[in-house]
């Protein structure tokens, strides 16, 4: 396994999780067309996929698009994070310098798989043009199929971008956690002077009692 092409990458993934053989090997016309998509079209498909995981809901309701999920999926370090989390097997050393190629392969496989499913269910329509409900149904189906590891990989990118506030704090603000200070300059502080009640808790006149000895379990 020294060359990095689709076959070797699929074999690499399949050996550690489930077989991907056939998931993009179809002669389906839609898949062939999808593989010839321009970068812009491929990006549109992947973004439409990420939107299924965390849909945008207008102002105050950010989704994958607003929190930079696509950029997370594209980020080189994400390959290593995903490996740490178990979404990808550890890359062979000779592939370590070819993360851009791996990035492209992952998107190729997802775009092809979604094109095949869209063609099967919706004829000539394209995945990115489907409604959220239609896209969701396709992703539910395909994420149970042989390409599952890559759907989980994409979903992890969306979730980490949203809850991890990697690119901006829109996601965490939307769930009620205050914005980070000075986010733009990389110095943040989640603390606050307003962090204490500074009083002894009381419920119906009762205060907490002590079981410990000097703070430790006996």
């Amino acid at each position, binding site marked *: 396994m020294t060359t990095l092409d689709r076959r070797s990458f699929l074999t*690499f993934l399949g*050996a*550690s999780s*489930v077989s991907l053989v056939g998931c993009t090997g179809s002669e389906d016309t839609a898949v062939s067309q999808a593989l010839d998509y321009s970068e812009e079209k491929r990006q549109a498909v992947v973004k439409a996929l990420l939107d*299924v*995981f*965390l849909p945008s*809901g207008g102002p105050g309701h950010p*989704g994958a698009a607003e929190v930079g999920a696509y950029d997370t999926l594209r*980020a080189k*370090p994400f390959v290593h994070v995903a490996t*740490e*989390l*178990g979404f990808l*097997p*550890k890359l*062979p050393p000779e592939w370590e310098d070819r993360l851009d190629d791996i990035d492209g392969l992952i998107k190729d496989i997802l775009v092809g798989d979604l094109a095949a499913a869209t063609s099967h269910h919706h004829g000539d329509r394209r995945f990115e043009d489907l409604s*959220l409900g239609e896209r*969701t149904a396709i*992703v*539910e189906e395909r994420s149970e199929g042989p390409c599952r590891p890559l*759907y*989980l990989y994409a*979903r*992890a990118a969306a*979730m*980490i971008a*949203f*809850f*991890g*506030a*990697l690119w901006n704090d829109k996601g*965490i603000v*939307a*769930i*009620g*956690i205050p914005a*980070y200070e000075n986010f733009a300059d*990389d*110095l*943040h*502080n*989640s*603390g*606050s002077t*307003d*962090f*204490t*009640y*500074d*009083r*002894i*808790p009381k419920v119906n006149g009762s205060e*907490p009692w002590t*079981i*410990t000895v000097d*703070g*430790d*379990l*006996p």
Partner: protein
Amino acid sequence: MESVDIAIVGSGFGGAITAMRLAEECAVRGLRARIRILEKGHDYFNLDPNTVWRYRNAQGNGFKQTMKLDYYAQMLNIWTDLESVAAGAVDPNRFPTFSIMGGRAVGGGSLVYLGVSLRAATDVFEQRWEAGRRLWPSMYTRAHLNPYYARAEGELKVARMKWSTSQGVPLWQTCTKRDHVFATGCLKAGFTAEPLKIALQNDTSDGWWHTGQRFPGRQHLPLNYLARAKQLGVEIHSGCSVSRIAPDGRGYVIDYRDARSGGERKTLACKILVVAAGAVGSTALLLRSEHAFRGDRELSDHLGRHVSGNGDFTASGIVGPQYRVEGHKGKPMSSFSPSFWADSKFILVPFFVSPMPFAFGQPAAMAYPKNPAATGRRSTEPATRLWGGAYKELFKSFGPRLLTMVCLGLDRCEGEVKKVPTLTGTSISVEWKRTHPDTEAMWTKATQAMRKIMNALDGELLTDAYRHRGHVISMHPLGGCRMAETRQRGVVDDKGEVFGNPNLFVIDGAIIPTSLGVNPSLTICAVAESIADRIAPSLGERLA
């Protein structure tokens, strides 16, 4: 080949304490010994003059205080059950997924711990399971460790929090809003809550416990043990990832890669070798090296077994609208409820960590695209779809009313660290075997207690990774190189010395024979202090 007298692999609690105490002993006795720490992670505190990590922030330390992905990837070590995660985390016919999170930097786990410093209860050391044998070596009791606990508390500046400044403490030493809400819930449910002992000084800001703080409040090892070790001449080499160790005559050799010289492969010889890379790290290193230990030096077949998650079990819920938890403000932990220890051997601690490490710690939660509760696996909670708009809206409703609690208790060490074959060699994975009925019963009681507290706060217990997804997550792994009286029962003796291998020690969480039921850092410190005291008399002979 370069050589030193004492090499220490890892700079967490076990490694830092051993380095400092042995250096002190050498100084006192006039022994000219060269001591070197090899640490895989970066140095954020300028203890290694040759570190490749040059960044310094406005507070003068190396923490970037950033949410960037590559930074978290550098700071955290995550081990998980690769096979289960890849398979989608939950297979009713397989074991639950096991994930473990630890620190990776000079200072080890102390850079990602929450400073909680409790002594383990007396009955922890008296545990006996079916075989009826005491699991800890006979010399270890709470009474034996008490002076060592006190010594570590002094070095780490452990302070007991209080509810109010009216109790004679400064504001930084008081509990957070989150703790007050938790205490209110406990009181209403008939339980009590008490302030925690924390390795903390003068911290008024409290943010960023996982990625460095604006103010050096939390007492991590580079502020105390490691700083003192460096003063005593201990060399601290960061970015040095040890791949294998092997016996070599009367000493040992270490193979490692040095990131400071472009990842160059190096070999270091030493007379005394201390492995202190954490429960998983130390166990993994011995597993990778076991082929080099033959005949009388063969490692015990207990290696990799008896790994405890320390009973870690986390659940979250939303309290009633009249309560403001605002969990993100203040110390991430500062109170706990000991009400359940006497009968059920667990404690509950309310806590909050910033979302990113929380997400990192839950790969299965991140992985599973549908609600596996639908499979009926252990679920007692309402179904929640784990992606899409509904999931996002659920999280939105959490906000300042989110109260997360962790149970720490006595499990049955159901975990295992093991080598797994990969296409490029072997990798280290962790696995959680079938949960023992005693552990299951403890977690059931913990869930019931958490639900009672939530109900008392007019709230609802919502999420719980284990019950929902069969996923055991531990921030407090212990075991893997169990300490025992004989090699038939463990990997190391009561001094941490590997059976059959003089002068090879494991001194960290890996040797702790059982779960502790409280945050384990202080007990690891106390055990390391005790071992250092007992190695000291023979140090000259060992170095001869």
